[in-house]
């Protein structure tokens, strides 16, 4: 009992703060689970096709999510499209896991219209290279979604025909959906048009928050000619 003073005390939790719980027991019988997401046989076929590159299979709310190696994503999509009939790409998007290794993920939401099936493929992006292979050759629908993913997370897609930013202007230098990007934005990152015809760009999107008072409409703004 002598060395009990050396052991650090367990951090106390504040009585009124909310502490995230570890996952409960496996949630079953989800009333919202759909018959379309029962794709166990497709997942088995994919697993035998990919071998060790099929990392894990997560089932939640009846939905199957397969995590595969990012180097085999073209192979995976070709297999699913040509042999299993998943010809329709419903959605593609990025995920930022922030504190984990290989923090960026991309998920592919694929649909088989004829058989009425839907599944999800997830790949993890190597943080060093920050690139993924494009699937636009298989699914032209991925074009804008991949641009959006590049715009929001900075993941580059090798072989993409037109990798420009989707929403933000090219002049913007940040990736807003990364977890470290502040909710209020970065002052000066998005210049606004000048407030007077000959004036400078407004560099701060939130001038009032930083103590700046923009000229009011009833005030006459001096133009360059007045200064001469």
């Amino acid at each position, binding site marked *: 009992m002598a060395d009990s003073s050396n052991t650090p005390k367990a951090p106390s939790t504040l009585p009124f703060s909310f502490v995230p719980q570890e996952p409960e027991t496996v949630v079953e019988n989800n009333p919202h689970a759909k018959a379309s997401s029962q794709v166990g046989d497709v997942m088995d076929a994919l697993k035998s096709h990919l071998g060790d590159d099929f990392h894990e299979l997560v089932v939640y*709310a009846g*939905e199957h999510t397969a995590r595969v190696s990012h180097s085999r994503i073209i192979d995976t999509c070709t297999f699913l499209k040509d042999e299993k009939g998943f010809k329709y790409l419903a959605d593609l998007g990025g995920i930022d896991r922030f504190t984990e290794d290989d923090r960026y993920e991309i998920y592919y939401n694929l649909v088989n219209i004829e058989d009425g099936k839907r599944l999800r493929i997830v790949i993890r992006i190597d943080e060093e290279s920050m690139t993924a292979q494009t699937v636009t050759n298989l699914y032209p629908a991925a074009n804008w979604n991949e641009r959006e993913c590049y715009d929001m997370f900075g993941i580059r897609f090798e072989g993409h025909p037109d990798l420009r930013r989707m929403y933000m202007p090219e002049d913007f230098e940040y990736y807003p959906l990364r977890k470290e990007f502040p909710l209020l934005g970065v002052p000066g990152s998005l210049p606004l048009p000048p407030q007077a015809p000959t004036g400078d760009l407004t560099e701060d999107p939130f001038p009032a928050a930083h103590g700046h008072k923009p000229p009011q409409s009833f005030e006459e703004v001096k133009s360059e000619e007045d200064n001469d």
Partner: protein
Amino acid sequence: MSSISQTDWTETLKFWPRHNEALYKRLETKHSWLETSGDGAPPDPLEHEMVLNIGPQHPATHGVLRCVVKLDGETIEKSVLDIGYLHRGVEKIAENKTYQEFMPYTDRMDYLQPYANNVAWCLAVEKLARVDVPERAQWIRMMMAELARISSHLIWMGVGLMDAGAVSVFLWTWQFREDIYSIFDEVAGARLTVSHSRIGGVATDLNDTGIGMIQKFADSFPEAIASWEKLLNRNRIWIDRNVGIGHLTAEQVVAMGMTGPNLRGSGVAHDIRRFEPYLKYDEVDFIIPIRTEGDALARYFVRLDEMKESVKIIQQCLAKLKTVKGPVRTDDAKRSYPNKDEVYYSMEGLIHDFMYTDTGVAPPKGAAAYSAIEASKGELGFYLQSDGTGNPWRARMNSPSFTNLQGLEHMLEGAHMGDLVILIGTIDPVLGEADK
């Protein structure tokens, strides 16, 4: 032609120079699929090529859509769409809100049918957090979402015809949209930004006035559709403006990932209401209109027939609501707001209300789910990931307007300049949703 690449945009434009440079460079380097005047034809002595910006501030672009087109005479040779002028970053906002707090933001995404967006968000959260919804609430949601579909299609129809030059139809459709606004006002307390759905049910039950208004609307609306059909289905101008333009085959729409009436207008039978029935869609009798022509006219017929089917669904919901009684929100304080009577008259109710506002529903850590509904524009889905707290770790929105606009870029190439506004109308985009 070469003048574009030589323009120094940093000199010409102070504001977003690199953005415009990249946009015009894309237009310049994009492969043109149009066949040129043929081998051996003499070169065009006049330079007919012109680069034209339509939008972002243009009434016919249905929002802040910017179409940069390269014209060869009257024909659009290449087109590049630029969206993002209404980008508010709702996905980022959602990560910093509780699940219930985000609801009013969904009203403002597809602002032509806010109720359907509320329902889509609620269903996604309920799937993620495994919340049961009382049966009556599901019927109410379904009925109101169908009303929202009608109101969205009414805008599409009125504005689409106004684009074609018929202003009076806009006023007629608006009359019925006004009726739907009044219904929402009576049921939810707001005309446009309803936020009536709640996680685990709906905010309030319908009263007799609301039921009566919906019944009156459902009874009178088919007559109006019939009169519009009489006007339009044999209208030479309307048919000629729409037939054969913006043609897409079934393979093309599937490849480009288009959704909603744009998919079904090309003969692909895909509707989320049948594909993965949510709410009570597997218990009502309705058909999903499909056309195989794949042109703008086919999409017009699909949407018109969808409105008729929506009325059928609303009638069945009204009949069902007479027998299905009970609570409209789940009685589980950890997953849904408590009843207001409890909040005002009991201590536990007040605490639960406070806790639900502060933290809200907390799905298990690591849970991820995707839930989609068939909105008026197509598949509107939310992909949610939880980290065990009351805020979503990742909230991704799969918006139909975004996916459909991608197809518009292809549709415009080869079309005539005069058909551009019709083609934008036939896609039926809402930029509030496409720009997130």
